[in-house]
Each structure stands twice: as C-alpha cells, then as structure tokens.
C-alpha cells in the first residue's frame, strides 16, 4: 500500500499529465501558435481535432444556459432503467437456472447463442419495436446488462460453499430460507463484482441507442454536431459523457463498500 504522502504525489503527477495533454492539444491545434507542420492550412488541425478552449467554452455554455440538462436527464434515465431492469432480470433468471438443472440444460444453447450475438445490432430493431423514445434505448441497455449479471449470479449460486449450505440446512433452513439467506447473499457478491461493468454497459446502451436514432439525449447531441462538422461540440459531448461515466462508477464503488462490508478487502489485516 502506498503511504498517503506518496499517493498525494501520485495524484499531483496525474494532474500534471492531464494538464500536459491539454497543453499539447492546445498547442498542436491552435491556428496561430505554431507554424503548420503537417497540414497545409493552419485551420485544418483545429477542424479535425477541435480546440480545447472552445470545447470547454461549449461545455460551459451548455451548462450555464441549461440547454444540456434535458438531454443529460434522458441519457441518465435510460441508463438507470436499463441497469435496474437488466440487473433484476439477470438476478431472477440466474437464480432460477442455477437452481433448476433441467431448465438450465434446456436453455443452455439459447443463452450461449444470445450472449455471443453482437447485440448492438439489435438497436435498429428495437427502434422499430419500441419507437424512437427512451424505451428502445432501455431495451438495448437491458440486453447488454442482463447477460453480465446473469452469468455472475449463475456462477455465484453454483459456487456456494457446500459446507455453508449443508450447515444452514442442518440448522433448519427450509428451501425458501436457503434461497434468501444463502443463495441470494452469495450471488449478490458476484453481482457486485460485475456492477462496474454493468453500469458502464447500461450507459453504452443508452448512448449508442440515441446515436442510432432519437430526438433527445447526449448521444443525439453528438450526432447532431457530427452532422454539421462541429468537432468542438462532439468533443464536448464525449467529455460530458466520460465525466458522468466516472461519476456513476464512483457511486457504484460507494454502494459496494456499503453493502459488502462482510467481505475481506485487500490490505485489511484487522484481526483480533
């Protein structure tokens, strides 16, 4: 474990690296700062790669005028719905198939096929089925989240310790109590292990869905900007999306710490 001092130094270096990248971006794309090295026209670099100051300005305008909020709200709502629905479905199906070997044997090839299918390709079909509003994006996100959660729950249930299970049965647990007190908690630790992945994919599902056909959302904003070769807005949209992806990931970490207190963490040696 790094000490707090060295982790502070590390944080400083990370910020310095970020500033360095921005500075390089600025210097390489500014039409006036450097003589054109690669492009014949000094404005071409800015046309292809945007300009950091203009990107920041665009983000500032979006947030100060409030014009981005409805789009952001739609994207986050789609993400949240896809995440919740996908997780619940994955949990239920995972528990069911893990505890019922016959059903698992029957459905096994279908699950494998559905999982190997490149599911992003379903987005246009969902657009036809569910319209261009949020439902089609949620559906795409659900298909992405579901399989991650499903496979983790399936694995989690099958890897419940035999001794813990036998012990609970001898202590008098009925089948329902086994499900509630042994299988689900055991599976939940696997679900949490996959949570970072599934939140990320719910987000991907929402944005890709918007990008392929919608009238609202951050993905739609980016698509519009691309349509008018407004590269600065494209980069601004990407940056906003990245920031919110990081935020979601951080929230998952918080929830994980809260709900998995019973799991030993690396570096924790508290024992008496």
């Amino acid at each position: 474990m790094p000490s707090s001092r060295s982790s502070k130094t590390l944080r400083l270096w990370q910020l310095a690296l970020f500033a360095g990248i921005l500075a390089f971006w600025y210097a390489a794309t500014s039409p006036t700062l450097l003589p054109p090295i690669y492009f014949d026209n000094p404005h071409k670099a800015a046309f292809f790669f945007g300009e950091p100051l203009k990107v920041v300005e665009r983000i500032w305008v979006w947030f100060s005028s409030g014009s981005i909020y409805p789009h952001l709200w739609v994207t986050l709502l789609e993400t949240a719905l896809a995440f919740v629905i996908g997780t619940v479905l994955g949990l239920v199906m995972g528990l069911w198939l893990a505890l019922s070997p016959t059903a698992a044997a029957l459905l096994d090839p279908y699950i494998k096929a559905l999982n190997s299918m490149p599911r992003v390709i379903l987005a246009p079909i969902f657009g036809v089925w569910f319209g261009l509003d949020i439902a089609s994006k949620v559906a795409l996100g659900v298909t992405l989240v579901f399989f991650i959660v499903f496979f983790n729950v399936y694995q989690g249930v099958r890897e419940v310790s035999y001794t813990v299970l036998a012990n609970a049965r001898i202590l008098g647990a009925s089948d329902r109590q086994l499900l509630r007190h042994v299988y689900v908690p055991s599976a939940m630790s696997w679900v949490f292990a996959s949570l970072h992945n599934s939140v990320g994919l719910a987000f991907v599902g929402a944005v890709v869905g918007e990008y392929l056909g919608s009238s609202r959302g951050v993905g739609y904003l980016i698509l519009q900007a691309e349509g008018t070769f407004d590269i600065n807005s494209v980069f601004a949209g990407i940056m906003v999306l990245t920031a919110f992806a990081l935020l979601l990931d951080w929230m998952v970490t918080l929830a994980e710490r809260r709900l998995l207190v019973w799991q030993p963490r690396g570096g924790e040696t508290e024992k008496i």
Partner: protein
Amino acid sequence: MPTEVPALALEDIRVTFVSQDGQRYTALQDTTLRVAPGEFVSVVGPTGCGKSTLLNVAVGLLQPSAGSIRVFGQSLSGLNRKAGYLFQTEALMPWRTALQNVTAGLEFRGVEEKEAEAKAMSWLQRVGLTGFGGRYPHQLSGGMRKRVALAQTLILDPQIILMDEPFSALDIQTRQLMENELLELWSANRKSVVFITHDLEEAISLSDRVVVLSAGPEAHPIGEFPIDLPRPRDVAEIRLTPRFLELHTLIWHAMKAEVLKSYAQQQKQ
C-alpha cells in the same frame, strides 16, 4: 445399559459411492455404532477411512446404501432434526456477523428476533466472545470462528452433537483450550456426542468411549475401548497420568496395523 434406547444407533451401515464412469468405492461396510444418551464417543481411524462419511450418514446428509439409522428409537428419514453438526471446514455464513450466525438456527425456526438475539448474546458470552457479536467471520481468528460455530450449534440445544474433526485446523494451544471449553459445556448439559478425530490423544482425553475404525475402503469398527478416566478432566493434565498412557498404548496397538495399511495404500496410489 442394554435396556436403554440409544440416542443414535447406526446398524450395519454400508456406504458405496458410484462414480460417473461406473467405478464403485465402498467407504463403510458392516458398521454398527450405538451412542447412549449423554455419552461422549470418539471415533478414530487412519486418514481416509470414512469417518466423515459415517457422520454424514448420521446427520442425514448422505443416504446409506444399506443399514438403518435410529434416532431415539425412531427410524431416520431425511435430515436428523435432533442433531447438531460441527464441521471441520468453515461453515459460518460469511455475510452474517457472529451474532447473526448464532441466531440463524433460531431465525429459521421462526423465533422472534429479540428473543433470539438475547439468547445468542448469552451463548456468545458462554463461548467467550462477549463484544465480538458485530464482527464478520473474516474479522475473527480461526479459534474464534470455531467458537461461533459451537455457539451456533449448541444454541438449538440438540440432543445429539456430531463433530467432524472440529479443532484439527487450530494450533495446539488454542485446541486444548477449546477442548476444555467443550468438556465444560458438555458436562453442564450432557448430550450425546460423536466426535471424529484422527488424533488419539484428543479422543482419549475427551471421551467415555473410543471406537477405532479400520483403514478404508470398506472401513468398519475394529475395536471399542471404554475410557475410565475420572471427570472433570483437564485435557492437558490428563495426558500425563499413568492410566492415560496405558489406554493410549492399548488403543494405539490396535490402530497401528490399520494406520500402516492406510499408509501403504497411499504409497501405492
């Protein structure tokens, strides 16, 4: 005591496992074991002789291929509800605190939460874990986890306690401490105990009777030795008495051939 109904009676038990490729392995053969109410019986034998199999049959986790099991005269079907089981390996639910692990059995039986907690607190105190109720298993040492497991089993007041080498993973000092505590708890409220171990000294110092199993496969009891050492005992001190050494020599003599046989079989594989 021939007229008394045994707390646990395993009669002519035979356990044959069939693997998927059709290979048969008979772990136990012609095994009869009767345990009187309040009696402490240890079963010793070389490694891999089917001691755990015997216990799994007694608790109803495993159906014997032949033979009958009677619990206080009643033929056993399904899990043995009169028995508590202490496992060799970790059996606590890692997502429950020590206290929640101890209350688990009562919770499964529908006992009210407050009542269960009060009872669990007093059991944690009895096994020397006052103030550790809020800790999760991974925050406890091996010895403490065994104590929690002991409280978890004993809180249900089982008439028969089955123990599968419960202390084999502990260091020798912790182990003797736990053995003494077990004897103390047991003598306060005498239940029938079947204690499986490969450690002859542990078996003699704890029990009323030691049963020696032969080497597997087809393990069966080859000797029974009543232990007439006075109680209460201190497991560390009693090992130094002449009578203990006599008994040890006697039983070891019976066991030795089986241990060598088991060793030779392992060498072959």
